[in-house]
Structure formats: C-alpha cells, structure tokens
C-alpha cells in the first residue's frame, strides 16, 4: 500500500500540511489546477456534495487538500478563491519549489506536466485521481475520474465507518463484499 506520510506541504497561509489524516479520520487529496473548468471542478464538486452530506462530526474527521500542479498560474489568492467554491475549509496547497511538488506527486504516483504548446498556449496535463489517505499516511483508495458521485460518496461513508477495500493480504478481515 502506498504511504505518503513522508510528504508535508504548505497551505497558502503557511500552515504545514502533512499527508496524514487526523486519528480515525481521512484526508481527501487532489492534484489539480484552477484553470481547468472541466475535470477538476467535477471531482471537487463531488467532494463538496459528499462533504456536505456528512454529519458535522464526520466532517471534522475529513480534511480536504487541493495541491496545485500549476503554481505558475495558481497564486495563493486564486487557489484559495477556487477552493472556497467547493469546500471552504479545504487546504489550498501550492509550492513554488518544483522539486517539492514533484516529490509529493511521486509519493502518490500522480503525474503532471505543464508547458507551452506549439500554439504558444499554456498546456497542463495531470492524472486526475482523488486520493483518500488514512491516519497512518496510507493511500487507502484512489478514485479515478469517471467515478460517479454516488459511488464516491458511498465509498467515503464506508471508509469513514472503518471499511477498507479488499487487499492482497488474506489477513485482512474486513467484511465488505469482494465484488460489486
């Protein structure tokens, strides 16, 4: 299982954000950029809807992080403003240090690429998974884009209830069904 506890980034207000959830909680981590009007808002929109459906107690257990893979355009102000549309309590995370960003992405096995295309326009590519990290820093689930909102929300609720997806280890005694 992927463990990302070695990653600590910073929110735009300077607060260090370590990729480990609160005890008994979850971090929902997304790598994206604010200029994306399509994939990123869809995913963050799902997070928003699911988050709002949680009880206050459960909301307190969940931290939402967006890490910008386009810090060139995503200033602190822009990133905060963008995230406020979704989950106001989310951490707007960006770094101007390209190595720090790449190291963090590699830990999640996320990838991104930014540059200028032949037409002189800025072009950004990125993997679009949403990650759920537990309080040990394990990535317990990664939802690819295309996951429906109801599936995502159901998974989130199950994760918060302590369920975990089936693993390769036979010792895992979680009771959920193996197949959908």
């Amino acid at each position, binding site marked *: *299982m*992927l463990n990302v506890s070695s990653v600590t980034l910073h929110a735009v207000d300077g607060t260090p954000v370590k990729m480990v959830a609160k005890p008994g909680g979850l971090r929902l981590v997304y790598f994206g950029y*604010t*200029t*994306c*009007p*399509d*994939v990123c*808002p869809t995913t*963050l*929109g*799902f997070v*928003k*809807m699911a988050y709002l459906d949680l009880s206050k107690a459960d909301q307190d257990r969940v931290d939402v992080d967006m890490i910008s893979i386009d810090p060139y355009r995503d200033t602190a102000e*822009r990133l905060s*403003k*963008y995230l406020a*549309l*979704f989950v106001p309590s989310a951490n707007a995370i960006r770094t101007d240090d390209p190595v720090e960003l790449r190291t963090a992405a*590699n830990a*999640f*096995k*996320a*990838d*991104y*690429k930014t540059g200028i*295309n032949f037409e002189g326009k800025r*072009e*950004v*590519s*990125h*993997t*679009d*998974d949403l*990650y759920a990290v537990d309080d040990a820093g*394990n*990535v*317990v*689930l*990664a*939802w*690819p*884009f*295309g*996951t429906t909102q109801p*599936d*995502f929300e*159901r*998974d989130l609720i*199950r*994760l918060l209830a302590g*369920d*975990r*997806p*089936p*693993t390769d280890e036979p010792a895992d005694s979680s009771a*959920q069904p*193996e*197949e*959908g």
Partner: protein
Amino acid sequence: MTISNEQIVKVSDARPMRRLGVMVGAVALLAGLVTGCGSDGDDKTADPTSTSSSPSTSANAEPVATDVWARASTAGMNSAVYMKITGGSSDDELVGAVTDEPLAEAVEIHETVIDPGDEGDTPSTETTMGGDKGAMGGDKGTMGGGADSPMKKMQEVDKIDIPAGGTVELAPGGYHVMLLNLGSDLKVGDSIGVTLTFKNAGEVKVTAEVREM
C-alpha cells in the same frame, strides 16, 4: 445586442463566424447536397424526401441542443458549458460558440483528452480500484492508490462533428464550451444565452442554466 469581436470564438483561421454564418450556411447547403445525404436510409430523423434537398428548408433540419448547462463559477475563473446535441437531417459540425452577453474574455470549444505523450513519465503501478467504477465494492478494489490513470489535458478543437440524427454529448471529461476568464460570477440559477454556430445549419441560440457543479 451586438457582440464584440472579442467574444467571437476562435476557429482555425479566426474569421468572424457570426457575420459569415449565413454565407457559410449557404455554401454548405450546396455542399450538403453532395455530401450530406449518403446515410439517409439509416437516418432516424431524415425526411424521406429530403435526400438531396437543402437541409435547412425542413423544420427539424437543424441540430438541436438540449440540457444546456454551465458550471457555477466566479470572476477570474473559467467555466464550462455542456449540452447534448442531436444532429439534424444532415451531418453537421459545431464550429463555434459565443455567449450573447460578454461574460468572459474568450469562448472556445475544448476537449479533455488523454495526454498521449511521455510514457516514461507516467508511473506504472498496480491498478487502481476498478477502473471506471473506482468503488470499494467494485471489481478490483486495490489499496495501491496507483496512477494507472493516464494524464488528461484540455485542448481547443476547431469543431465537433455532429452526425445526422446522432447525439453528441458535451459532458465533463469530454467536450465542453469553455468560458475563459469570467468577468463576473456565474451563480446557480443564472441563465446564459449562448449562440452555437454550425457549419451547415448556421446559428442556433440556446440558453444555458447555471448549475452547481
């Protein structure tokens, strides 16, 4: 209401589509006589007598856009307009879109695609949980958190093919009409007038409802 040139969507040669809309339509009409008619036999919406008549003379010749919606967003950010387009009685292409009010710095047609390049950079790992379902109850349910997912990116496209009688969806993750750099907030419940330009059918006006994500 006049639309400033800044609002005209860029197409391959950046010509002002709106003014040429009628002319393009007329030229395409003639082209349509030759090219647009091959599939009339299978075409669900084709008028049986219109195999070689000008498409825009029959009532349902135009492509029709339904379920037109835009994402709520704020000033300075981008947004996207989505819809379902059902083809008319002949093949057509969506070649442009503008908002009727100057809401954004630019309006472009975009597609989210898989970035084909740089396989070396994409880490290959164990699979994610279930591919398109990604649900804990789904097929694979691994804990790998791996990025088997490819990278995605957006790119501007010159056109979207709208086959006669076919349905093309502009939906999240695929095609969308992108509104770049909004001048003001788009709030849930707002309505946005959008004029779509089709190569053959010319301009079609629609209203996009602003929705929450």
